[in-house]
């Protein structure tokens, strides 16, 4: 740059070196939070031992919980140490070293704060469960009720599993037919497009529980040949009708997400519309469809519990029977636990697929 340069030293002073940030304030807050957490935890484990009549198991759990609640004190103390170090170095005019010590101290104090806050939440939940001399635990978490109902519940849960799997297999086929109908080109395809669109709109609008009710009770009256069917198959029909509408949408959106330039490239090589779909669009779209399809599958698995409205003997129906028999919701909690156990790994798997896809695209 010449003498006309826009930047001149004489008007831009070098900045003052910035002072190290403060540490002690954060450390004090962390200490207070830690102490509240410890206090709450001690009280909560006392309730826990009272509820379990001071048996050995509850004592062991209590000791572990209290020891865990003490852990956040260590990084908090480190935070105070960092603060002291910062003050000493600042006294020696070692600004860079003081900044580093301050940063490390704040990091430590923040860790103490975070774990202290988590302790408060855990202790609070335990407190809530044990409050009212164990009323919450009695209502939802009775081990004896779990033991009594487990065999029948796991047996009933099998219905949920096969209904979900069979329904989704049918949904993948029926949804594909709907999606193809919606993609038919030209004026000739217009009426079929309209029918498929109306179907998707209608069955996404009706709550699934209403469809279950209408199909399971209605079919046996309107189509008498279904009276000989295992009633769970009517549940399969209802869920298939509902979820096909969602899955058709996934297929359609997946194909629409492929850039039009791919279709242009294929068509300009002389491929027909059908050949373009088969060789170029579908193979690319399938990869993008898998995560949303998995999400719909997970959702379908949970909606099998809706079949309890029609007294199909799946897990929730049986759980409610045990609930009225034992006067506790614990069997229903157990049913919830079954769903949690099969659903969470699948949800994680979907996340993994999505992340893998995202990182692949970022890498490309």
């Amino acid at each position: 740059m010449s003498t006309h340069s826009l930047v001149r030293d004489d008007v831009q002073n070098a900045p003052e070196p910035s002072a190290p940030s403060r540490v002690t304030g954060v450390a004090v807050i962390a200490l207070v939070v830690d102490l509240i957490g410890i206090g709450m935890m001690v009280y909560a484990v006392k309730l826990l031992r009272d509820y379990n009549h001071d048996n050995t198991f509850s004592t062991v759990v209590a000791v572990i919980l209290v020891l865990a609640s003490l852990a956040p004190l260590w990084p908090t103390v480190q935070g105070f140490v960092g603060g002291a170090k910062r003050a000493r170095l600042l006294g020696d005019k070692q600004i860079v070293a003081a900044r580093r010590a301050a940063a490390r101290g704040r990091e430590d104090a923040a860790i103490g704060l975070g774990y202290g806050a988590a302790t408060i939440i855990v202790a609070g939940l335990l407190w809530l469960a044990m409050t009212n001399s164990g009323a919450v635990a009695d209502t939802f978490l009775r081990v004896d009720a779990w033991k009594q109902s487990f065999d029948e519940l796991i047996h009933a849960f099998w219905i949920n599993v096969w209904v979900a799997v069979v329904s989704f297999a049918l949904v993948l086929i029926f949804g594909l037919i709907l999606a193809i109908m919606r993609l038919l080109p030209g004026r000739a395809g217009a009426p079929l497009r309209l029918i498929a669109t109306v179907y998707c709109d209608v069955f996404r609008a009706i709550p699934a529980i209403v469809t279950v009710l209408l199909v399971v009770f209605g079919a046996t009256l309107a189509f008498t040949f279904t009276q000989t069917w295992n009633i769970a198959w009517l549940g399969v029909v209802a869920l298939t009708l509902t979820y096909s509408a969602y899955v058709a949408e996934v297929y359609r959106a997946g194909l629409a997400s492929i850039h039009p330039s791919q279709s242009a490239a294929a068509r300009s090589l002389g491929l027909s519309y059908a050949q373009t779909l088969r060789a170029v669009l579908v193979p690319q779209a399938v990869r993008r469809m898998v995560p949303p399809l998995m999400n719909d599958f997970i959702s379908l698995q949970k909606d099998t519990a809706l079949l309890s409205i029609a007294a199909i003997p799946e897990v929730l129906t049986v759980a409610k029977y045990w609930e009225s028999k034992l006067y506790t919701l614990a069997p229903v909690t157990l049913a919830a636990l079954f769903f949690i156990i099969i659903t969470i790994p699948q949800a994680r798997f979907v996340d993994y697929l999505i992340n893998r896809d995202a990182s692949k695209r970022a890498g490309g």
Partner: protein
Amino acid sequence: MAFLEINDVRKSYGDNEVLKGVSLNVERHEVVCLIGASGSGKSTLLRCVNQLEQVNGGEILIEGDTVTGAGVDLNRLRRDVGIVFQSYNLFPHMSVLKNVMLAPTMVAGVDTKVAREKAMSLLESVGMAEKATAYPDNLSGGQQQRVAIVRALAMEPRIMLLDEITAALDPELVGDVLEIVRELAHDGLTMLLATHEMGFAKEVASKVCFLEQGSILEMGPPKQIFENPREERTQQFLSRVVKSGRL
């Protein structure tokens, strides 16, 4: 009768008239370059020739047979008219070799083994044979564009449309791609290309058309257009190109 005749072609998207009556003839073995600012209608004109876009008026004929309007076998037409795009548009889920073999095997019904040999020799000719098993995402822009040219050539088109095929490339990769086009021109392939590479147009074109807002403003041999343009708008356009160092 010219090989490709474009007669008074009009094209609009809604109220936006992109082509306002374009007429142009391309003789066999001729290389015709379309130049002009972005949005002047170069790409649209190319996409009308292979009917990726339908015309709203006028007519396009190849060897005297109309390709516009109803009743034309588009898949048949597109076998004879190759196109290469600015953004390559390779199929990302197929290897380079599969990209090149797809249309010959699926559309032309060529035997897989024959198609593979043909594809390999074409890839060889553009220096891409060793990348035959690679996937497009792992290739540079220049490599992808060379594959895209080969993919179009594999159908043995009688005319090639090149739509700003070097516009998305890093400057140092442009040369390789242009070299291939130069060879094709030398071999006598009929080509209609839209380009911003004025130096290249000057070198290979038998005819240059300057498009301005959907009309051909000036047309003639490259020497005349680049060195002695008649129209003021052509002069302005070329002087801006010179200023940006592209000529």
